């Protein structure tokens, strides 16, 4: 594991961060080569939470494999399930009823807000501020309550099925979401007061971890990490799926490319998600919440690919079918993996203390990277 010791010059020290470290948000192991306090190299070691989800999916039917994907990026489990459902629907050629489409988009955007809120709290905690974590969880809790009421779970929902959603909306759904929107609008200024405007926070974020647009593209970054460098890559805009092309929202872009830009992207994205929810919450069409599908799903022979925008970036689902009831091969293109690969590049030359801030703004979810 430490063959890279030979490449270091005298005076360098090598430290291990993780795999059990609170700042890595999971079992990520970083081998860091330091010269004094300056980072010379960061090498992520993966595989500590590899559950071979892709291989597991090959033995599950097209209805069954969706629940496993909630365990990849557990903070946007709805969106993962959505991607799989869309990919299977592509193969089956089923039309999803309009009501189901709206429900799906509503759930996706609620998930996005919940995910960004958790990220915001964890980000502030990485930098040493403890209270924001609880403020973030207060709003997130009301989203979780909404999810629990309609989907029956708080984290691993398994609510999207091929052809629609599993159950109809709970009768209280609209009321609860409106309450949440009000709560959110009353509390959003606290985020700026507590963290964004804070001078210590700004000094630790601005100009740190610069990622140029060229590098963002060549490393395959996506989501807020790439949009912080001004790369337009929001799948909801570029390759719209479901009803995103009929909705009014902006793709959030910043050009600074530093940690603060990536931070601001996520805060502003929450506003856009709120905008989408506001457009839809009073206009949920009546009708079926699930298209009629056969009890046993069989995809025709061929290859199917679907990408969606999760809270972290572009998630791609690639299914190879041999015409049977189970996929021949499944591959997930997870956003976290590419975003992690850029860490070494942006961390070189900066101080060890800033590494945690950079990792925080990349918003890494380790089970998503390892799968």
């Amino acid at each position, binding site marked *: 594991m430490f063959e890279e010791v030979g490449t270091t010059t005298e005076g360098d020290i090598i430290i291990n961060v993780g795999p059990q470290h609170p700042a890595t948000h999971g079992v990520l192991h970083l081998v860091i080569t330091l010269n004094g306090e300056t980072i010379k190299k960061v090498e992520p070691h993966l595989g500590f939470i590899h559950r071979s989800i892709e291989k597991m999916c090959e033995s599950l039917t097209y209805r069954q*494999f969706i629940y*496993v994907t909630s365990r990849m990026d557990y903070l946007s489990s709805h969106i993962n399930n959505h991607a799989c459902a869309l990919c299977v629907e592509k193969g089956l050629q089923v039309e999803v009823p309009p009501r189901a489409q709206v429900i799906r988009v509503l759930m996706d955007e609620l998930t996005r807000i919940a995910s960004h809120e958790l990220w915001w709290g964890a980000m502030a905690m990485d930098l040493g501020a403890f209270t924001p974590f609880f403020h973030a969880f207060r709003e997130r809790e009301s989203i979780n309550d909404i999810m629990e009421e309609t989907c029956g779970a708080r984290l691993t929902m398994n609510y999207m099925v091929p052809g629609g959603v599993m*159950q109809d909306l*709970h009768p209280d759904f609209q009321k609860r979401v409106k309450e949440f929107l009000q709560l959110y609008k009353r509390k959003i200024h*606290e985020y700026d*007061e507590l963290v964004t405007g*804070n*001078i210590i926070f700004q000094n630790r974020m601005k100009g740190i971890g610069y990622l140029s647009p060229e590098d963002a593209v060549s490393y395959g970054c996506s989501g807020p990490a790439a949009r912080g460098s001004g790369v337009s890559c929001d799948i909801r805009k570029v390759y719209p799926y479901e009803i995103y092309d009929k909705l009014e929202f902006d793709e959030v872009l910043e050009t600074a490319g530093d940690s603060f830009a990536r931070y601001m992207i996520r805060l502003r994205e929450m506003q856009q998600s709120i905008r989408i929810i506001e457009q839809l919450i009073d206009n949920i069409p009546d009708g079926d919440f699930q298209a009629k599908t056969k009890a046993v799903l069989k995809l025709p022979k061929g290859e199917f690919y679907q990408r969606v925008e999760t809270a972290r970036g572009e998630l791609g689902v690639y299914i190879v079918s041999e015409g049977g009831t189970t996929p021949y091969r499944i591959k997930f293109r997870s956003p976290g993996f590419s975003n992690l690969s850029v860490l070494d590049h942006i961390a070189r030359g900066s101080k060890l203390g800033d590494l945690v801030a950079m990792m925080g703004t990349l918003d890494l979810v380790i089970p998503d990277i390892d799968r």
Partner: protein
Amino acid sequence: MFIIKYIKEVYRGVKSLLVGMKRTLYYFTHHKEIITQEYPDNRDTLVMAERFKGEVVMPHNEKNEHRCTGCQACELACPNGTIKVIFKNELTPEGKKKKAIDKLVYHLELCTMCNLCVEACPSDAIKMAQTFEHSVYDRSELTKILNNPGSKIMDGVE
């Protein structure tokens, strides 16, 4: 000028810190806005959402009858082999042999609460319960038999 810029920056910094402190003080003095629940002290009043997926159960009526026909649809739908249907042969009043379930074995420790079995069941024999305090001292206690001892299939359920 350097000195003016410096003073301005200090002023801006102190102000930003005070704004944050004000928010903290606000919550220190406004206890009504605190929303934490004091679990497990509130267990008596705790209400779980009606769709909360806590455990698969099989409801029985007052005559100890269930709706399960033993069609095995749940067993096939389950992604990880949590449910096993075990059959027995029963004699109908006319003296004919009939297949019925002996046990519907459910391994709670394997279950991922995905709801696929409940969706698949054609006769609504199983549903999700809202319990969530599942910890036990020995894991063999987590293997449950869903149908009550001596229970029969309800009349009219095919």
